[in-house]
């Protein structure tokens, strides 16, 4: 059972529709206690880092997510803001984030249109269960004004070009995330979600 973390600013409905299309068991998780009933977790997200963190704090999810993902080792997938909040801090707000991964989140420069909106090439930097079976040139749908700058380069799983290369996927142990919207990236994104559902977190 996949738990999709639901909070007011999220895109949880789209993620649920995508998981339903794949025939995967999933439920929305709105409270900390419900997290114990699922064996893997998706943290979706649209909107602002600060609003996301505030929602997670108010619902008591910060400690629950940490316990399930970092102590119990449940496979975890962040999407968009769900990737950005994994780092220590974001320029957006600015906001203190979860700090599961070292690094910070920065805004794209004004030399490009911000937000970045559209389909862009995701280049995997290493083999991983999440990117198995993708086309040679996978394009995914991005909507972001900010991007993560991981302090540990080994956490990077893929990069994408917009005002230079930025980190578009991370994977560190059982914690992974996509900056693009996997649930809205057509068949490529659905494949990544299917890969996540089968991933043992290693």
């Amino acid at each position: 059972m996949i738990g999709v973390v639901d909070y007011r600013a999220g895109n949880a409905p789209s993620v649920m529709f995508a998981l339903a299309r794949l025939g995967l068991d999933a439920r929305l998780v709105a409270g900390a206690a419900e997290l114990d009933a699922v064996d893997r977790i998706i943290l979706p997200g649209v909107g602002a880092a600060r609003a996301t963190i505030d929602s997670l704090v108010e619902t008591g999810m910060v400690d629950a997510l940490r316990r399930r993902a970092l102590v119990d080792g449940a496979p975890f997938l962040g999407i968009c803001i769900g990737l950005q909040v994994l780092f220590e801090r974001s320029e957006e707000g600015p906001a203190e984030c979860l700090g599961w991964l070292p690094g910070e989140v920065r805004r794209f420069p004004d030399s490009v249109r911000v937000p970045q909106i559209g389909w862009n090439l995701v280049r995997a930097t290493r083999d991983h269960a999440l990117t198995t079976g993708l086309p040679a040139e996978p394009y995914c749908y991005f909507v972001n004004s900010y991007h993560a700058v991981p302090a540990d380069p080994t956490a990077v799983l893929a990069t994408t070009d917009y005002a230079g290369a930025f980190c578009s996927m991370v994977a560190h142990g059982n914690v992974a995330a996509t900056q693009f919207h996997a649930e809205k990236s057509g068949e490529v994104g659905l494949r990544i979600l299917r890969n996540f559902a089968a991933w043992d977190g290693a």
Partner: protein
Amino acid sequence: MLTKRLIACFDVIGGRVTKAVRFQDNIDVAPAEDLARSLYEDQIDEIVFYDITASAERRKIDLDTVRRVAEHVFVPFTVGGGIRDVDDMYEVLKAGAEKISVDSMAVRDPDIIRHGAEAFGRQCIVLSTQVQHVGIRDGIPSGYEVFIDGARTATGLDAIDWVRRGEELGAGEIVVNSIDRDGTGDGYELDITRAVADSVNVPVIASGGAGTVEHIADGLTAGGAQAAIISSMLYSPRLDRNPSVRELKGALIARGVPMRPWVD
């Protein structure tokens, strides 16, 4: 690199797609969910749907149709029409849309843009503008005026002033829809599209008038737009033939316009 986007646009009445010319003479096309599903399979980049009578009838948007489309479409999906406040926006997002398009309501109450962007992020709020060429005059230095209520009501707002204001208030994308070209198949109004693209730093979407691949390519190059809205071409029963998305994108790529490649 970031590719250009081809966006299919539907006007919906009672759950069914309808097609007008210059905002009049609507004819029935298909149920919204059926058309959305077939365009998704044809790998359209994005879908926009306007509940075109919601605002005039002062009723809430048709959430059932939003949900039925969202269930079958795994590309971004924008919804507009009849959205009055942040609570309405939240209902539409909960039904499965990613973005909210605001138009007439944003002219009447510009703060709706700011409130929406604060609640859901700038990327969620698309400012759609209906513009008409009226000539340069007092208060309209660009020569293009913004209209609302399905192009029926002049606002006295200059198109360029309005899109700049919209960007400041928090709009994450701007749609430039030419009233003069809407549904004509004569090509986008490139001058105003380019002028808007040069005036804001958020993505700009060309709309109104695309009838050929050349028109789309022009909108995405000379027009300076990051995305092109097409509708009649894809599904209007008034045309002898409706090209597929795959065919259109192939022709755009052949003309050097970067597009998301077909996935087998």
